């Protein structure tokens, strides 16, 4: 009997085309006022919706789960180029989209991260139809022609040259080249590669790579959830899902064993301060130990009675920061310092090690303090719709689970003292890290010279001066001869032309 009803329902839905394709697959309570709902709109598109009526506007962000680190080495930069075209032009004439968004009281932006490409819009609450229209227009009909490509190329090359000019940006690129096994890690692409891109290449990459990635739409704001779902269903519910990717994402293989446990050093003249970056491979967001690592980051970073304060206050470093980020299939906990050239990097390594050893016997109060601080930080993003949307987007891009952020808040609350030493031993060891330093070249002091050496130097100088004098005399003589010769020729020429 049940089977019969199911079959009837199936046929009714298919025939009338009124049955929505979306499905609720999870909800998470963020706070007293905010609840996140996670839906599947079609096989390639998910949506997270949070109704927040504080301000009569809404945030609309679209994430494609591919970013610059997912691009082939030597061909990086195409996603960033497409991001410019999709965000700037979409399905309209060049320049029109900006006009439409702004005339309707909206704002828009876009960015390309290592593992996702993101498009952001913000509108007054009555413009939801327009937001979906722009988003679906961009998805189905982005215009990639000669005019658009040439205009964006100029802008992108300017943007690129600005980034390349930044030493810190170059150091970050080198470090992530080590992390991603890429000799030349250039998220915006090389200048030569960008210059030769044409509309055909980009159209092909758009159709066969970017559009085949899984997407997430995040809507947060003064919206009616049912209406949002109906509009998304209307735009994407009947989408023809394209087949397998023609160029699949490279299979990630982390960590990079070639550099694991190594300490790489580069030198550069005229450097005011040395740079030091140490990153430990850690599990991705969603792993049960991620919360414990966030607690450790908080302790190392706190402004007083911490590794950071002791390093800065003692003058060993000028600045010090610790951060945690989740990437596709892995995470990184990174310490970054700017230090005077005479601070030994070994001292820095030793101080980090000592602090981590101390933290293996973390007190209950220290753990609670770090927990409270971490919660304060995490709750802050609920005040900012754009940050909140980013948290869903990042979790989607790195683990395909957008609602990990609220889960992480729960994990933070339940972390125990005994987890900490295990986490340190498992992840925060030197053999599980990559270190890169940039410093000035070493100057070798030469031993004092003898009288004999000074004598030889004086003789050599005299000889050199005599040789140079001879050369100059020869040149002057030769020059005069040549001058006489060519002056005659020039006069002859003038004479001929006058005739």
């Amino acid at each position, binding site marked *: 009997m049940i089977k019969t009803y199911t079959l009837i329902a199936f046929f009714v839905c298919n025939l009338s085309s009124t049955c929505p394709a979306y499905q609720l697959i999870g909800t998470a309570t*963020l*706070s*007293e*006022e*905010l609840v996140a709902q996670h839906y599947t709109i079609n096989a390639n598109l998910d949506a997270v919706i949070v109704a*927040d009526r*504080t*301000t*009569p*506007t809404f945030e609309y962000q679209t994430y494609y789960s591919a970013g610059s680190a997912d691009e082939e080495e030597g061909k990086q930069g195409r996603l960033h180029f497409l991001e410019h075209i999709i965000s700037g032009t979409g399905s309209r004439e060049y*320049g029109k989209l*900006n*006009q439409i*968004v*702004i*005339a*309707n*009281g*909206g*704002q*828009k932006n876009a960015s390309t991260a290592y593992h996702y490409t993101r498009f952001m819009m*913000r509108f*007054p*609450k009555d413009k939801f139809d327009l937001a979906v229209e722009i988003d679906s227009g961009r998805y189905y009909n982005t215009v990639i022609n000669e005019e658009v490509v040439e*205009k964006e190329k*100029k*802008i992108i090359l*300017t*943007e690129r*040259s*600005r980034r390349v*000019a930044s030493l810190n940006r170059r150091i970050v690129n080198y470090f992530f080249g080590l992390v991603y096994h890429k000799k030349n890690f250039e998220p915006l692409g090389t200048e030569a590669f960008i210059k030769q891109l044409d509309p055909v290449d980009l159209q092909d990459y758009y159709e066969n790579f970017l559009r085949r990635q899984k997407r997430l739409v995040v809507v947060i704001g003064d919206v009616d959830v049912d209406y949002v779902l109906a509009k998304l269903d209307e735009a994407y519910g009947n989408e023809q899902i394209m087949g397998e990717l023609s160029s699949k994402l490279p299979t990630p293989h982390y960590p990079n064993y070639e550099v694991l446990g190594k300490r790489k050093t580069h030198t550069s003249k005229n450097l*005011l*301060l040395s740079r030091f970056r140490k990153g430990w491979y850690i599990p991705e967001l969603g792993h049960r130990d991620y919360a414990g690592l966030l607690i450790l980051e908080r302790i190392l970073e*706190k*402004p*007083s*009675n911490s590794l950071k*304060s002791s390093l800065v*206050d003692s*003058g060993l470093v*000028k*600045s010090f920061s610790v951060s945690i980020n989740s990437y596709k299939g892995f995470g990184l906990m990174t310490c970054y310092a700017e230090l005077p050239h005479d601070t030994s990097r070994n001292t820095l390594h030793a101080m980090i090690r000592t602090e981590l050893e101390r933290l293996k016997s973390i007190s209950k*109060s220290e753990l*609670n*303090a770090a*927990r*409270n*601080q*971490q*919660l*304060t930080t995490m*709750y*802050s993003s*609920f*005040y900012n719709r754009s940050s909140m949307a980013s948290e869903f987007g990042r979790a989607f891009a790195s683990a395909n689970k957008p609602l990990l952020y609220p889960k992480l808040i729960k994990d933070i609350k339940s972390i125990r003292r005994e987890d900490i030493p295990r986490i340190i031993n498992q992840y925060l060891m030197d053999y599980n890290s990559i270190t890169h330093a940039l410093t000035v070249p070493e100057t070798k002091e030469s031993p004092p010279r003898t009288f004999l050496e000074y004598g030889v130097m004086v003789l050599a100088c005299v000889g050199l001066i005599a040789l140079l004098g001879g050369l100059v005399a020869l040149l002057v003589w030769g020059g005069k001869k040549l001058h006489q010769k060519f002056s005659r020729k020039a006069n002859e020429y003038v004479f001929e032309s006058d005739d």
Partner: protein
Amino acid sequence: MFLKVMISFVLCYVVGVLPAVAEISNHHIFYRQDKRAPVTSIEIVFLGAGSKQEQPSQTGLAVAASKLIQEIAKKHGYMDKLEALGTRLNTSPRTLYHTISIYGLSEHCAESIEIVRDLIYDLEFSESDLRQIKKLMVTDYQNYLRKDPHPLMRNFVVAQTKGIKKLKSLKTLQDLSLKDIRQYYDQLLKTDVVFFKVISSLDSTEVTKLLRPITEERQRGGFVHSLKFPTTDYSVGPSAFVFNANIKSVLCQWLIPCGDISEESTISTLISDVLLDDARGLIHQYFRQELGLVYGPSCKVRWSEGVRYLYIFADPKLHNSEELIVKMSDFIRELSDNPRFWESLKERREILKVSYVHNQTPKRSLDREVSRAIYNRPTRKGGSDSVTDEDVRSFLEKFFISQNMIMVFAGPKDHITGILNTHWPEIEVHEQSTQSLIE
């Protein structure tokens, strides 16, 4: 007194939106409830304290006092106590006021307030603390120079051309004495008006109760709030400041001084919106989209020691720099005759009618309300809608002229002076070292 505060607070709360006030009553609470997160942010604002109270020979005093509060909080365990609750402490001096603020979990708010009360009323400064702070501030000054010298450059050139005080000086910093700090802090604690700026998941009655420890013990007779600054009506005419830097681009800023802090700012804000509020901004359209000379120009209205100015920033590559500098300077000078400006103004008026809703977040509306109360500027009835094209034209003709334009460049010195000599041989060029910004 407490009853008076309660009544005014409850009245305002019942009305919903607090009206702009000409004068802020002592211990007034500007408040918004926001239940989206279980956190509370409280700013204690000492109105009248701040960098305005420093003599030119005491530049850095307010910042030093601020840093000392933090340092002592660390040294005497207050910071640890706050951190244990997940509460962040911040202190920050502005030109006309000084804030001590906390941000943390609402459930620990009462305890955090008690700790802050103990800290601010039991503060004892020592010579060694001051020495330590001076050392940290020297590092800070050098970091500013290295990482983001543009605000320092702007303050420096306004100081040089308008006679205001330079905000950072290593010399005056070294000369600061413990006596100066104690005097400043004593005056700060007794500031005539202290008020609160609160966003919290807690309700108003709870917040009022929470703040009692701060208000109960306060004496008065310290700093008094005033918008009056020393007269700054002299100008050195069109000038250019060049900071030598070995980089492959030229960092360019154009400053257009336009009035003082107490004057209404609707027209200057409207013009800066037309020029560069978003991708429809005229500078973005023309210099980025059409000419492709820059990637991320910006345009803002700012104040430095009472002097208001509009500034435009652009960072062209070396080979684009001459074209950009010449075109941008002409663009500024000829703005009132530029038909595209008037079209953009018309378009911007329409945009403002629909985009204002983005500013209705609890934080932004609270900031606006507090700002209105502090600066007490004459407000235009009808806001930017009441500004006519003629008002804008007179403003442009008064301020957007060669004589009032200050150009600031950082990049290869010879390249920049070459451009200036070619196009504006009459202009007064000041070659400066970046170190002079903090000397």
